[in-house]
């Protein structure tokens, strides 16, 4: 698997990440060697094997939707980088 400049651009876009030029060059090299090793998985014969997500085969677990938390509003808003007294602030999202 070749790691191209275009692929790095695409992955930056998907991950909302912007790398410095130096990090970008290193990432191309590192992802190249990691993917080279990961491609070893192609040698494994998985014909007819069902993909497994949960080891115990648990499916949906449901519970009553009851409110158990107390009022945490101030604590929650307190963690936002931009806030007013009453709410979290975000940059303008439309004109």
């Amino acid at each position: 698997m070749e790691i191209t400049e275009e692929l790095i651009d695409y992955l930056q876009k998907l991950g909302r990440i912007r790398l410095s030029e130096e990090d970008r060059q290193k990432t191309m090299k590192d992802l190249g060697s990691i993917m080279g090793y990961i491609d070893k998985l192609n040698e494994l014969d998985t014909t007819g094997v069902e993909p497994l997500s949960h080891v115990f085969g648990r499916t949906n677990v449901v519970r009553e939707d009851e409110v158990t938390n107390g009022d945490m509003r101030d604590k929650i808003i307190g963690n936002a980088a931009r806030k007013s007294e009453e709410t979290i602030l975000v940059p303008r999202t439309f004109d």
Partner: protein
Amino acid sequence: MDSKEILKLTALELGKAIKEKKTTSKEATKAYLDAIASLDGKYNSYITVRAEDALKDAEAIDEKIASGELKGGFAGVPVAVKDNMCTDGILTTCGSKMLGNFIPPYDATAVRKIKEEGMVILGKTNMDEFAMGSTTETSFFGPTVNPWGDNRVPGGSSGGSAASVAARLAPISLGSDTGGSIRQPASFCGITGLKPTYGKVSRYGLVAFGSSLDQIGPMGRDVLDVAYMLNVISGEDPKDQSSADAPKLDLEAIKNFDLNGKTIGLPDQYFAEGMDEDVRNAVMEAVKLFESNGAKVETFPMPIMDYAIPTYYIICCAEACSNLSRYDGIKYGYAPDDVEDLMELYIRSRSEGFGMEVKRRIMLGNFVLSSGYYDAYYNKALQAKALIKKAFDEAFEKYDVVIGPVAPTAALKAGESLSDPLKMYLGDICTVLINIVGVPAISVPCGFTSQNLPVGMQIIGKHFDEQTILGFTYAFQKLTADKAYEQQTAEGI
């Protein structure tokens, strides 16, 4: 009781001494805080130390012990908590600049349970950023140093939880394990660390990394401490739908565990080329000891192990990139203050808030999940997971436990694997399979290398059969009491 005596006690012994009024929670907490103040400048095992608050908590707990409200074996005992578990009102950084200011508004379930037991949280321990790493060198708050000296890493990602216990800066700690993050640092630091069965301990309030793999577990100097701690933190939790109700451990049965007739499987691949000679010898010596005490030992092939690393890194990065998409610089976490465009805020918050290893795994995860590659990588890894589970199911039809090393080497020199991520990933070869299958495994000190670095043996059990692996571990600790691997600490502390 003087503080030197306090630091020597196991967590259960300390709990007992407090109950018998030989010391108090406050005195014990102070002894540990003093030790941290004098030594942690060197080890950097804590990110946050709760100097005054811990003493206040201890005082309140002493009153509750006196009134009979708190009766547990760990009531009054101090504890260190890895900094990826939410603690109400206490900074929880996950070793990242991204969460450098994050103060959780609630407790993780495991944290709530140790508080209910009456334990005193000394502080939050250092870790690889977002638990991504095997050396505790990717922490934004600087690397943790292995107390065994010689410029060695403590392992990771729970390196702070391991080093703090090894250096006697905490009697016991909580870590988390996604691909070996409890077991490998336990091995590197010469302590005992247990990764419970997936679902045994609630993940509610654990900062998510690989949700199908993450599990909280205890790290201590003594196997009974570790067993008791699992009883404190385990149990089904309505707030984590993957948690399960399983019986508590019977500590008396662990103490009386009989090795006679028990079966041990040794996978060939765990002892193959590439494993350090000293590590292999130490583990084989331990296995021989089990054999000479009545256990039956057999080797068996486990060729699927060759695919452990690719399968693990595909699954964990896929889950990590999804989990870490929540960091947008808005609700919580780092955000630059000079941005007026929403997309730019996302990009700059993430680019400036995450370190390189985290970015690398986000990119890898997005790659294996992206259109056109999903089948070739992610789906293929889930098929490999099915085959890995089958291999373990077959092994556990024949054996009570499977034993191997925890890592191919003892603790590495600082900086050795940081420059080459693939090299670091390959060091996880002995531990990642266990998370993929969800079975429990423990790392217990079993000897030393020629350079006097601790070596850990890994004992792997069936789903929800922690009882058996702790039985083996206790038996080993008893058989090697004269060597007391788990009680030796660096620099004669």
